[in-house]
């Protein structure tokens, strides 16, 4: 029953991540978001990095940590981290969101995702309701035509 209700209200179940990824630690190292979410500047999807992305640095950095050894082992077995999407629109919302133009318009990542330097695993800090999007579009004089996002 709750599933039906969640579905009707477009509520997403809370994401359970395979690994408690510390966003704060990484951002503290002056790594920018697009280092790992590599699609964010170029296209619609920011992307959830695979272990291959982790191993670019962790082949040599912090290899003594058990968690790093764990993901190294996963990579060697060909198993990837099954990240759960934290933000996202339900299929029935028919939203075609494109990251790239927002990045080009100098919208700060934190605007929509909260300050990641204060989060370990990503949590829903901003409610991505239509009102949230429309308000910002109105402020920035971006188009609020339905077809801007819904097609």
């Amino acid at each position, binding site marked *: 029953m709750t599933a039906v209700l969640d579905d009707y209200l477009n509520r997403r179940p809370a994401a359970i991540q395979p690994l408690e990824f510390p966003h704060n630690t990484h951002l503290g190292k002056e790594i920018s978001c697009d280092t790992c979410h590599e699609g964010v500047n170029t296209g*619609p999807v920011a992307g959830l990095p695979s272990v291959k992305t982790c191993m670019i640095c962790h082949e040599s950095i912090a290899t003594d940590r058990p968690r790093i050894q764990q993901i190294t082992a996963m990579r060697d077995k060909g198993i990837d981290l099954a990240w759960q999407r934290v933000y996202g629109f339900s*299929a*029935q*919302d*028919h*939203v*075609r969101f*494109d990251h*790239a*133009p927002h990045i*080009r318009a100098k919208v700060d990542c934190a605007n929509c995702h909260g300050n990641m330097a204060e989060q370990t695993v990503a949590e829903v800090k901003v409610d991505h309701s239509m009102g949230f999007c429309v308000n910002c579009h109105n402020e920035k004089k971006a*188009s609020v*035509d*339905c*077809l801007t996002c*819904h*097609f």
Partner: protein
Amino acid sequence: MPHRWGMAADLDRCNGCGACVVACAAENNISTVGAEQAALGRAKHWIRVERYWEGEFPDVRLKFRPVMCQQCDNAPCEPVCPTYASHHTDDGLNAQVYNRCIGTRYCANACPYNVRFFDFFNPSWEKPLQLQLNPDVSLREVGVMEKCTFCVQRIKAVTVQVAAEDRELKDGEITPACVQSCAAKALVFGDLNDPESEVSRLSHSPRGSKLLEDLGTLPKVTYLPRDTEA
């Protein structure tokens, strides 16, 4: 000046092959409904090639006419929709906003061209056919009206790219799937507000006419008839 998207169909080039029909299905995630539903008249073809017989054997002629949403400037589908699911955009498209659609089907009744299609069931793609789905286009669910969008996802992609590169849009840069697939180049797409564009030129052609023009719908698709001269 905003764009005003339009199309022209040269019926002297169109040979009725139906490539546009399949191209449209492939681009826009239009589900096949299967034989039983097709028999009920529920096949969804956002673009169709109508054919009309004229005369009797042996002096018989047959005419093809590709019909898709005419993206009318004065569209009868728009005012009747109680929720604005069907509405007019700044660049002249008749938008169909699936998430806002409650399924009154009034727009389809009002459309004189019968180019709107209703999803009678949740569409299904038997695995792994779903791998083909275009992620740039929504999957419509049961109870929603759908129709030709002039491949709005392609329009968006190119206009976003053009904006990123800070340049002018080139004529012919945007091709909806049907236009792209047409080997005979019977379909031309472009900006009607650009007087230099091919589609502007064709839509002002003295040969050109609009489908059911007398209804006052002001369609943005121009048809150039087949020459009858032998």
